[in-house]
C-alpha cells in the first residue's frame, strides 16, 4: 500500500521547504543552523526532552488522526478545538471527582474524554445533517462555546480555594495523572493508545467498508444513495469518531501535560492538526510523521529564547513559512520537475 513515488516527492518538497525556511531566517538575520541545531537538541537532546516532545506529540497526532476521518468524509472539522477542550473537561470532571484519588482514574478519564469529545463532535454533525448549518460555522461557534465553558468552570465551580484566577484549576491528584514509567516519566499508556489508534485507523480506513464509504461520502454525497448508503449517516460517524479521538487528545493535555485544566487547554493543537492533515493530504503515515516534526519544532522552539536569546515568535515564523511554502509547492508541482531532472542526471 505504501506509495514510494509519493514519498520521493514529499522528501524533495521537505528539502525545498527547509531551503525556504533557511532563507527566511537569514532575512531575519538569524543563523538557521544554530536555530535548527538548537531545536533538535531542545526536543530530542535528552531523554526528558524527548519525553516532553512526546507529550506534545500526543495531542497533535491524535487531533490529526481525528481530522483524517472528518476530512475523509469531506468535512472541515474546525470544531476540533472544541472537541479537544471538551475531552479535557470530561477528563477533569473525573479527576476532580471522588474517583480522582484512585489509580483507576486515568482509565475512566479516557472514557469520559471520549464521551465528551464525541458528543461535542456529534453536535457539529447534527447541525450539519439536520440543521443544514455549514460545519465551519457550527465548528467555530462550538469552539467558542467550549472555551467559554472551560473559563466558566475555572473561575466558577472548579476554582482554587479562595482564588479566582484564569490561571487554571488545582493540580490533579497524582493518581489522576497519566501513568508513566521510568525516572523521566515516560507516558507508556499514552503512547500505547496512540499507536493502537493509528493502527486501528489504518485498518478501518483501508480495509473496511466504513473507510471506503467515508471516503466516497467526501467525494460525492449525491452518488452514495446509489450504493445503498446514506451520506448523512457517515458524516455523523466521522464526527463521532473524530470527536472521540480529539477527546483523548484533550485528556492527554489535561492529565498528561498540565495535570490541571487551564483556559487554553487545547494549546491550539486542533488548528495545527488541520494544517498537518492538509499538508499530508489525509495520508495517515505522513500525518503521523509530520505531527512529530511539528512537536519537535514546538518543543525545541520554546527553548530558543533560553538557548539563543531569540524571541520565541521565531518559531511561529518557521511554522508559518513551512506550511505556506509546502502548500504553494504542492500547488505548483515543482518536485516532479526536479525528480525528472535527477533521474535524467542519474540515467546519464
Amino acid at each position, binding site marked *: 500500500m505504501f506509495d514510494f513515488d509519493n514519498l520521493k516527492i514529499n522528501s524533495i518538497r521537505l528539502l525545498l521547504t527547509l531551503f525556504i525556511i533557511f532563507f527566511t531566517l537569514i532575512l531575519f538575520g538569524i543563523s538557521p543552523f544554530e536555530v535548527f541545531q538548537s531545536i533538535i537538541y531542545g526536543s530530542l537532546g535528552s531523554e526528558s526532552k524527548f519525553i516532553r516532545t512526546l507529550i506534545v506529540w500526543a495531542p497533535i497526532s491524535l487531533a490529526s488522526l481525528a481530522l483524517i476521518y472528518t476530512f475523509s468524509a469531506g468535512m472541515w472539522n474546525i470544531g476540533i478545538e472544541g472537541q479537544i477542550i471538551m475531552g479535557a473537561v470530561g477528563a477533569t470532571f473525573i479527576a476532580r471527582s471522588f474517583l480522582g484519588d484512585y489509580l483507576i482514574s486515568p482509565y475512566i478519564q479516557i472514557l469520559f474524554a471520549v464521551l465528551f469529545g464525541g458528543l461535542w463532535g456529534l453536535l457539529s454533525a447534527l447541525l450539519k445533517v439536520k440543521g443544514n448549518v455549514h460545519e465551519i460555522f457550527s465548528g467555530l461557534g462550538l469552539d*467558542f462555546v467550549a472555551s467559554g465553558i472551560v473559563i466558566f468552570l475555572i473561575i466558577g465551580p472548579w476554582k482554587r480555594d*479562595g482564588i479566582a484566577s484564569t490561571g487554571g484549576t488545582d493540580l490533579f491528584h497524582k493518581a489522576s495523572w497519566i501513568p508513566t514509567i521510568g525516572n523521566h516519566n515516560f507516558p507508556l499508556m499514552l503512547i500505547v493508545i496512540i499507536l493502537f489508534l493509528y493502527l486501528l485507523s489504518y485498518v478501518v480506513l483501508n480495509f473496511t467498508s466504513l473507510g471506503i464509504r467515508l471516503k466516497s461520502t467526501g467525494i460525492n454525497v449525491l452518488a452514495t444513495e446509489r450504493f445503498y448508503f446514506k451520506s448523512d449517516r457517515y458524516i455523523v460517524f466521522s464526527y463521532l469518531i473524530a470527536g472521540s479521538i480529539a477527546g483523548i487528545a484533550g485528556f492527554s493535555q489535561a492529565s498528561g501535560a498540565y495535570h490541571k485544566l487551564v483556559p487554553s487547554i487545547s494549546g491550539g493543537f486542533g488548528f495545527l492538526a488541520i494544517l498537518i492533515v492538509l499538508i499530508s493530504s489525509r495520508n495517515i503515515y505522513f500525518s503521523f510523521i509530520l505531527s512529530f516534526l511539528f512537536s519537535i519544532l514546538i*518543543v525545541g522552539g520554546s527553548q530558543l529564547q533560553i538557548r539563543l536569546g531569540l524571541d520565541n515568535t521565531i518559531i511561529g515564523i518557521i511554522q508559518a513559512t513551512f506550511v505556506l511554502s509546502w502548500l504553494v509547492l504542492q500547488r505548483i508541482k515543482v518536485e516532479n520537475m526536479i525528480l525528472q531532472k535527477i533521474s535524467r542526471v542519474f540515467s546519464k
Partner: protein
Amino acid sequence: MKLFHKLILASIIGIFIISCGNTDDTESSSMDMSMDHGSTPFKFGMILVGPKDDKGWSQAHYEGGQYIEDKLGGEMIVADMINPADSPNLTVDQVISDMIDEGAQMIFATSDDMKDGVLAGAEQFPDVPIIWASGDSAKSDGKGYRSDLSNLGNIMGKMEYGKMIAGCAAALKSSNGHIGFLGPLINDETRRLANVAYLGASHCWQGDGELKFDVVWIGFWFHIPGVTSDPTQVANEFFDSGADVIISHIDTPEGLVVTGQRASEGQDVYVVGYDYEDSCATAPDVCLGVPYFNWGPEYLNAAMDVVHNEFSSKFIWQGPNWDNMNDVDSSMIGYKIGEAMSTSETTKLESFMDELASGKIELFKGPLNFQDGTTYLSDGKEATDNEIWYTPQLLEGMVGDSQ
C-alpha cells in the same frame, strides 16, 4: 531551466556564507564573555509571566535581573510570556529544567500563578536555588509552607504601603469620591492590596459623602483575549459609571491608556499606575503616581548568597526604605509621585507618607470588618503578618467580588 539551476546554486552558496558568518560571530562573542568572567560565569534564569518589556510587573523583574548583572556580573537567561495562553505546552518546571540545562545556577520564577511549576521544579532539582517571588512556600507559619524544599525561597515587597499611598493619592484627587480598582485575578495577595488601597483612600478622603470604591477583577494578571475580561473595557466602564480615578493593579498599562484617552476628550479623570517605576510615562498628564517594586537589591542579595554558597530558604517580605523610598539600591518598594498631582495634593500625600513611615498612622488596626459583616480586626487590634498576608475577603465598604 539553466536559470533555475543557477538560482539553486546561488542560494546554497548564499546560505552557507551567511550562516557560517553568523555562527562565527556568536562563537567569538561567547568567548569574550567567558574571558571576562572566568571559566564558569554566574548564570541565572529569569522566568517572567508576561513580556519582558510590558512596562509593568514583568519588566520590573527583568530590570531586577539586570541589576544583578550590573552589580555582580554574570548572565541572565530570560524566558518571558510563560503562561498557558502565550506559551501553551510549556510549563514552568520545563522552563526551569531548560535553564538548568543551559547552565543556570539559580532561577527566579516571578509569578504567583507559577506555583505548580515552581514546586515541581524545586522538587525535581533540589540542588538549584529557586526564588519564587510573591509565593509563600518558605513562610514557616504560612499555609503553603514546604519545609521539604530547602532550595526554594520567597521574595516579596510590602506593597501594602505603596498601595496605601496609591489609595490616598486617588482619594485626594477624586472630586466625587468614586474610585475604581482595576484588579487582576482574585487571591490572598490581590485581596490584600485592594484592601489597603481602600484603607489608604478612606483615610485620605475628605470630600462630602461616602467614598465609593469599586473593585472589578479581569481574571488574570493581564489581558488574554477570549479568556479574561478586557481591561480596556473595564476601565471605560469605571468612568462610564461615574468613577473619576482608577487604581490599576494589573501588569499592563491599559488603565493608564484609557484614562489618557478620556482626559484628551476633556474628561477630568486620573489614574494610579502599578508595578513599574516608569509606568506613568504612558499617560503622564493624568498619572497620580505609581507604587512600584524594586526587585534589584533583594534579588542581588539572593544571588550573592548563591555565589557565596550561603543560600538558604528564606521568606523575605521587605518594606520600603522610608528614608528614601525611591533609592534603587535599598528600597524594595517605591512610590513615584505623578505630574498630575497639584502642589497642595503632593504636600498632603507626602505628609501621609511621613506619618506612615513614623508609624503614626496604622491602617491595619481595628475596628475593621469584612465585606460580609464579620469582624476582621476588633477594636484597637493590630493585624498580624499572617492576617495581612492571608486576606480572605474584601473589607466592608468596598464593592466587588471577594472570591
